[in-house]
């Protein structure tokens, strides 16, 4: 079986990235099952790794591999229905007073308790997903692959170098532990199932609560900013080309016209013009809006890593040769202040 750790948002809906991970698990179920237990192939000249058991999975592909979900905390009807549509057959639900405050070790142990002995455990490549899978991997004595984007008979393919290259690897081991890179696939509904919901009673070791969250400060806007950014349908990006801390007037007006979010490059956060929570890229948020309008951003690979999921890419840049313009669907060559100012003006005229 493939167990997917599913994250829900404040409103109890399944997170987009978790829906992607469930879809990945379902559409790759047979391939993933086939990879379990296969020893990693070593490139020539490398010593073979020790301790790999070449055992085939029990639930081999022709028996059909089930996709099951683990939800920690509240499980709403809406989430259950969403998971049903995504093809989840069993939902393992864990609710426990000690699990309310996030503690990676305790949550991971809960996942280890319900994970199969043979099969796959996975999560989306969010901070929680990454952290939990790493704990699960250590606790079950397995390797872990982060940011997987594809699986085939030869192994897994995962993003490295912020997405500018892919690593092919074979995990081996009876339990494959991995995370799915954000926006590596789109959520796809299937014939709805009626998932069985299994409620868990847990024993939580005091040891595992050594690092529980003691307090959450919700009043800070950082998390809200970041979630607005990852969920917005339209994101206006701003880079060094904005020129100064006071140069964001036009782009912010455009954000407002689009009911969208502002995303910035690392140069902008590095210079202290905008907070880090607005940063898009390898070390910022990964976004998947319907449209991303990159203003004065050159298109360094670490920035592109965050916008792979954008459906339409528009560049506004003085440099026609810049990577951003070359990678865009549409571009306007020119000074962003003038161009964005004119775009705002046009929107005001047309839409009052």
């Amino acid at each position, binding site marked *: 079986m493939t167990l997917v750790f599913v994250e829900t948002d404040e409103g109890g809906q399944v997170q987009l990235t978790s829906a992607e991970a469930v879809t990945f698990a379902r559409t790759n179920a047979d391939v993933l099952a086939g990879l379990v237990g296969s020893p990693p192939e070593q490139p020539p000249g490398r010593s073979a790794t020790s301790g790999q058991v070449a055992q085939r999975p029990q639930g081999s592909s022709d028996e059909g591999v089930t996709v099951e979900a683990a939800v920690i905390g509240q499980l709403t009807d809406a989430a259950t229905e969403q998971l049903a549509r995504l093809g989840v057959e069993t939902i393992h639900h864990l609710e426990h007073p000690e699990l309310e405050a996030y503690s990676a070790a305790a949550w991971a142990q809960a996942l280890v308790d319900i994970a199969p002995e043979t099969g796959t455990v996975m999560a989306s490549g969010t901070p929680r997903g990454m*952290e939990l899978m790493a704990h699960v991997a250590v606790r079950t004595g397995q390797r872990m692959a982060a940011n997987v984007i594809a699986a085939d008979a030869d192994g897994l393919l995962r993003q490295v170098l912020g997405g500018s290259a892919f690593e092919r690897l074979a995990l081996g081991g009876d339990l494959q532990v991995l995370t799915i890179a954000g926006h590596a696939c789109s959520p796809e509904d299937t014939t709805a199932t009626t998932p069985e919901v299994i409620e868990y009673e847990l024993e939580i070791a005091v040891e595992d609560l050594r690092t529980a969250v003691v307090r959450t400060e919700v009043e800070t806007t950082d998390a809200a900013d970041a979630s607005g950014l990852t969920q917005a349908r339209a994101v206006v990006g701003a880079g060094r080309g904005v020129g100064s801390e006071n140069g964001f007037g036009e782009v912010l007006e455009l954000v407002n016209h689009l009911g969208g979010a502002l995303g910035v490059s690392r140069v902008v956060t590095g210079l202290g013009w905008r907070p880090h929570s607005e940063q898009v890229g390898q070390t910022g948020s990964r976004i998947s809006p319907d449209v991303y309008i990159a203003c004065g951003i050159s298109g360094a690979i670490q920035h592109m890593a965050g916008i792979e999921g954008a459906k339409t890419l528009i560049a506004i840049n003085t440099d026609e040769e810049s990577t951003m313009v070359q990678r865009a669907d549409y571009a306007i060559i020119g000074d962003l202040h003038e161009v964005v100012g004119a775009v705002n003006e046009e929107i005001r005229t047309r839409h009052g």
Partner: protein
Amino acid sequence: MDILVCIKRVPDISGRITLDDSATDIDDRSLGHTMSAHEECAVELAIQTAADTSGSVTVLTLGPAEAVEQLRAAVAVGAKDGILIETDDLSAFGPEDIASIIGDIVRDRAEQGQTFDLVLLGNDAADTGDFQVGIRLAYDLDYPVLTGISTLHAVEGAGAGDAGAGGPGSGGPGVEARGIGPSGTEIFSLELPAVIAVQEGGVDPRYPSITGRMKAKKARITEYDAPEPGTGNPRIGLELPPETTSSVTILGEGPDAAPALVDILEEIGVIRS
């Protein structure tokens, strides 16, 4: 508080990369090198925390002889000394190996009387991005671990117990650490020793001063030979995305092109009106 920061020498990439002949590693001969962004922040946090507690910072790297440059860069901004575990083939090591080698050094140092209260790492390395060395190291050392931490400071009376979480919380020296969680800033309190994986965004790494640079030249770097990799690297090879040919439609130059852009935004249906 004595703090160990683990830093990794990584290629400084801005454009397209190429692979070496075996296609198992990137060809970094023409590239500059740096440490990962998260680790620069880890070094900065370590320096601040050590200064607040009259402690010191040691930096460690497992990598080629040239990785001494990254160790010296950290000394130039305030670390006291460095540890180089030398290998000429870092890609033969998997995250399990790296964590256990670092664990051995920490134990070895403790036997020699130098205990690290805190071990800092980056959340994920800029090149391999395995997102796990810190967590594996923590289990190896049997220390508690946090990831995604952007700020931290030393406190007395740490531990999760006082928050009613049922944790130990004996109230010894510890750290309060903050990171951005899904619903706001999450605050953790934990006892030392501990492992913390740092995420960029909470502090601005400082630039080296002239005296810092001078010091770095003379800094004590202790060298070890890396042991043979144990578990090894599960990598079969690297692949590059296909080179894309541009299919951009240039809408025009300057403000005159604005109406064409608004047409597209209307078509996508994102103008809130």
